[in-house]
């Protein structure tokens, strides 16, 4: 055994670089693949967001209509179990009907490799993250866009929104 001096991360063999967006949620830095984000908007522009009545998935309280699709708005603070702060931006994701509330965008960056999440991590973070990036002496979790809502949660939310729409139609119906 030896006492080792602090060393730097060795350059790994060249891999195709990946563009990521670095963003913060409750002062915690995360990365997400740039090509998984369709649009970044201010929360001020979300006036048309609809509140949905459901208690089962507390991280989702609103929906946004975009291009004839209903996006579920996920509060990233609640998703990651962080202290709730007022979000300023929303990331509209590309692959799935999810919009994520975040604090701010730090910058774009390129990562040349993604480290696997060590097996020591056994909780829901295995769904939350694709892996870990090491960028400028910082370990940054790279979020998995598909990890914000499970297929079961989509089914429940779709059911809740369909029920809400049915009730709205009934209320709006004028008796003959």
């Amino acid at each position, binding site marked *: *055994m030896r006492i080792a001096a602090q060393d730097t991360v060795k350059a790994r063999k060249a891999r195709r670089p990946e563009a990521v967006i670095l963003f913060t949620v409750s002062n915690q830095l995360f990365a997400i693949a740039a090509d998984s984000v369709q649009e970044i908007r201010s929360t001020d522009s979300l006036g048309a967001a609809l509140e949905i009545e459901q208690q089962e998935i507390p991280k989702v309280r609103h929906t946004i209509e975009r291009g004839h699709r209903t996006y579920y708005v996920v509060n990233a603070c609640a998703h990651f179990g*962080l202290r709730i702060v007022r979000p300023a931006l929303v990331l509209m994701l590309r692959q799935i009907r999810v919009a994520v509330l975040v604090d701010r965008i730090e910058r774009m960056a390129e990562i040349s490799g993604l480290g696997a999440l*060590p*097996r020591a991590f*056994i*909780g829901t*973070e295995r769904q939350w993250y694709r892996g*870990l990036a090491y960028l400028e002496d910082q370990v940054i979790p790279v979020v998995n866009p598909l990890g914000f809502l499970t297929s079961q949660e989509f089914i429940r939310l779709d059911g809740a929104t369909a029920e809400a729409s049915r009730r709205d139609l009934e209320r709006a119906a004028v008796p003959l």
Partner: protein
Amino acid sequence: MSAPNIANAKSYVLVQIGDRRFALSAAEVSELAPPVRLHQFPHNSPLVSGIIVRRGRLVPVYDVCRLLTGKDSPSHQFYLVARRHFGSASEPAAIPVNGDSELVTADTVEVTSPKYVSGILIHGNESIEVLDLDTLVTAGSQEQIQLANRGLDA
């Protein structure tokens, strides 16, 4: 407790965790790392306090101090990096220790309790528990999960 097995004398690394000394098999230990930066991010895995970067690898840190001594880890810790086994695979794992460590060759006496202690070695006038890292972090994780569940039930 059975009789000492002198023929099976092995090398152990003695480390200080909190206010107690423990031993780990030297064959499982790769290095004693200085107090490098502990990287933290949201997760809900019991015992894992974060990640350190060593030789280009991401090494999870298990904070076992409270489990072993009943007290929180002091700050500015060194890290003992060893191997944790997952079936046929393994990965590096670190536990916070203070900087004082010693390499000794000793025989051990087998013990059966607690489960994470694989034996006891005698060094000078001191009896030192030999830790089984895999069992320790598994037992610690299960204990934390049970405590969390009790908290939810209460």
